[in-house]
């Protein structure tokens, strides 16, 4: 296949970026999207041109490194799919594919398709944990967790921290990310002790970091590569509301 690419190029965080057009011949339908970009880069380097910077690591949809819009969709075509799982068989000969980095105030572009997602780490540091030192833990079976709660907590915990939810949201809200962590820990008995503090602190930090508000459009759920549902946002709202009534500052 022959593919035309329209890729965001930006030298560094301060530089002004623009779209650069490339053409790539001999694209195999079996190639993954990332391998297509690899072969573009190999070609560019050989031609003495600057390759395209982009992030990827595990190629198993679990590390969350990928941060690409493909034709306007975070992680490209396909439901519950991360960029590394997109294959060129999703495209046709002659297609033009537009590739951009996440666009969100809280995720500034570092270079080309690479963005800075430290804001997620800061959100986690604001409360995305249970305060337990090594060696203090009680026997894991002394705290019973019903299968349904454990499974539901897992569904929330499956978040890979890629930031597609923020990228998909017109307000660049991090509600789904925060909701997943708050819900996971609030669903488990061991996480309930700090549940209120956690919800309040993480939401406050989210505002402080410049993430926008949630207006329940569901765009985050639609683009989440792990299928994390907005019912967790409803849970976060409940947790937050009840915490703000009962937890004195």
């Amino acid at each position, binding site marked *: 296949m022959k593919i035309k690419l329209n890729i965001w190029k930006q030298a560094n965080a301060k530089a002004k970026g623009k779209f650069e057009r490339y053409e790539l011949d001999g694209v195999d339908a079996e*190639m993954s999207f990332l*391998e297509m970009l690899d072969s573009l880069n190999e070609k560019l380097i050989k031609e*003495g041109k600057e390759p395209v910077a982009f992030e990827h690591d595990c190629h198993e949809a679990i590390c969350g*490194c990928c941060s690409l819009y493909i034709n306007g969709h975070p992680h490209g075509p396909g439901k519950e799919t991360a960029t590394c799982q997109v294959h060129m068989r999703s495209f046709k000969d002659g297609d033009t594919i537009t590739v951009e980095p996440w666009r969100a105030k809280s995720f500034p572009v570092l270079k080309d398709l690479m963005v800075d997602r430290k804001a997620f*780490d800061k959100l986690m*540091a604001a409360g995305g944990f249970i305060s*337990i030192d090594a*060696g203090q833990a009680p026997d894991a079976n002394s705290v019973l967790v019903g299968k349904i709660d*454990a499974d539901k907590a*897992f569904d929330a915990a499956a978040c890979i921290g890629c930031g597609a939810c923020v990228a998909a949201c017109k307000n660049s809200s991090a509600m789904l990310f925060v909701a997943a962590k708050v819900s996971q820990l609030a669903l488990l008995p061991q996480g309930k002790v700090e549940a209120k503090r956690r919800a309040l602190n993480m939401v406050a930090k989210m505002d402080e970091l410049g993430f926008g508000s949630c207006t329940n459009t569901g765009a985050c759920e639609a683009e989440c590569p792990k299928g994390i549902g907005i019912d967790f946002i409803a849970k976060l709202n409940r947790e937050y509301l009840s915490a703000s009534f009962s937890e004195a500052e």
Partner: protein
Amino acid sequence: MSKLDAKIPEGPLAEKWSKYKATQKLVSPNNRKKLDIIVVGTGIAGAPAAASLAEMGYNVKVFCFQDSPRRAHSVAAQGGINAARNNKNDGDSVYRLFYDTIKGGDYRAREANVYRVAEVSSNVIDQLTAQGVPFAREYGGTLANRTFGGVQVSRTNYAQGQTGQQVLLGGYSALKRQVALGKAKMYSRQQMLDVVIIDGKARGIITRNLVTGEIERHAAHCVVLATGGYGTIYYLSTLAVQSNASAAMQAFRKGAFFGNPSFIQIHPTCIPVLNEYQSKLTLMSESLRNDGRIWVPKAEGDKRKPKEIPDEERDYFLERRYPAFGNLVPRDVASRAAKERCDNGFGVGKTGLAVYLDFRDAVAKQGKKVIKNKYGNLFAMYEKITGDSPYETPMMIYPAGHYTMGGLWVDYNLQTTIPGLFAIGEANFSDHGANRLGANSLLQGAADGYFIAPYTVSNYLADEISNKVPSTDSPEFVEAENGVKDNLEKFLSINGTKTATSFHKRLGHIMWTYAGMQRNEEGLKKAQAEIADLKKEFWSDLKIPGKVDEINQELEKASRVADFIDLAALIVTDALNRKESCGAHYREESRTEGGEAMRIDKDYSFVAAWEYQGDDKEPKLHKEELKFENVEVKVRSYK
């Protein structure tokens, strides 16, 4: 050649660790805040070690090359994490886990270290659970367990097929808590480029800030490497594409011995190579072999679709060769058997380098719903990559490089031969012998991080309380930084014609061909020559675009490939030296009449620890003799 002292405490096996803890040197809480520790790597060993040491009151600086510590490749572990809890009332015990691990490692691991990991395994599960890791539960609320290969009890805890992710996020959240408390400081997007030794002790590291390109000096009282394995030496492997051996090689060049470098696990069930552009192979969990049957056509070159081949014309070669264990033989055995069929022309798929893993019978017997419950996420992943549904047509699989049992040599303290330099998790060599059992990697990494390194590092630091953190202006730091800078400049000044990736691919091909699943003297010698040629070509024809002082992914790749080339030579030297077959190291010259691996205990019951002697010089071999006082050393048989 000298003998190595592993510093194993005296006394009965089951009492060694308790005795160590009871008699080790301590650092008082008041003094801990005066002591700085560098932890490199944030996977299932590094993040817990950093968090646990910070919880104790030490000042911890944590480094990772990814944008966030949560992306370390432990995140991709699928199946589970072992613990000797006897949850199923099926006779499990600390001793059994210890025994299975020693046997699974083909009697090439150190008894005392393995026993200690088994001993703390239950604490690991308690700790992770308390952190909010959502392990699978029974309806009654207790922990659920599954069974893995090579054992006869059910001791594997899991969180669907994403156990590694959940376990890693437990450590990551503990680390984030310490970052919030100001006890740990996180340095992400930093690649370690050298370890700094002052007066014979590890005192810091040199890093490159991957965003600005700046070279930074970081000093501490000790350095803990949790930098993972080097399976990407084959280029195509199940590892993340950025996983690398650079930190280990820097330590090696500074004098840390490298233990059993040639012990590399080849995982039997991976999605085969689909095209020449491929950069990564995807693992399909070992658990699939519980229900999937592995076969190839009986007729050579049979091109019919798998469904059209009747049962009597199929060769279920694992069931045929190993009737007792069938499809559940250990990883090394399954991998070699698949390779044997493909090498003889019976392989399937476009390339002939694949075998079928067929769920037809399991679906017919148990129904699609049950199979979907067990393996739904894996089947979906397979379909996304290949476009085929495993419910309809058999999976095609082939072995791929996976886990490295070899690594930096460490003593019982998890300390390398450089005082103050520790290696934990997959980065060290100590617990898996010549073959790792499924679900033991998460266990070992987490055990090292949460419950072993905090004690042994304290034991070391007790003698450091009156020493100040060295100045980063000291000559050793300046010299190390200059070396790093010279090296980076060298990469950029070559200005040749070939990309770093193209060299990595060729190196991977050499290693896979001659130092992969099967090795022999002739092939290994060929590999030696080809690696030397490749190295020359690399240093004269490499092409790196861009500059040092900016984001430069090609420069990052090149510096990793340079280390892989040197490590490849070391692996081949080790593989040549060990003229026996054991675990994953299969020397064709040492096999039984039936083609099974044959250990030679009288000559090779030792850990080979290699000492750097200079660039392109033959490393020096040191031996740690292995003593087995608590297990009977036997021949592994699965027939």
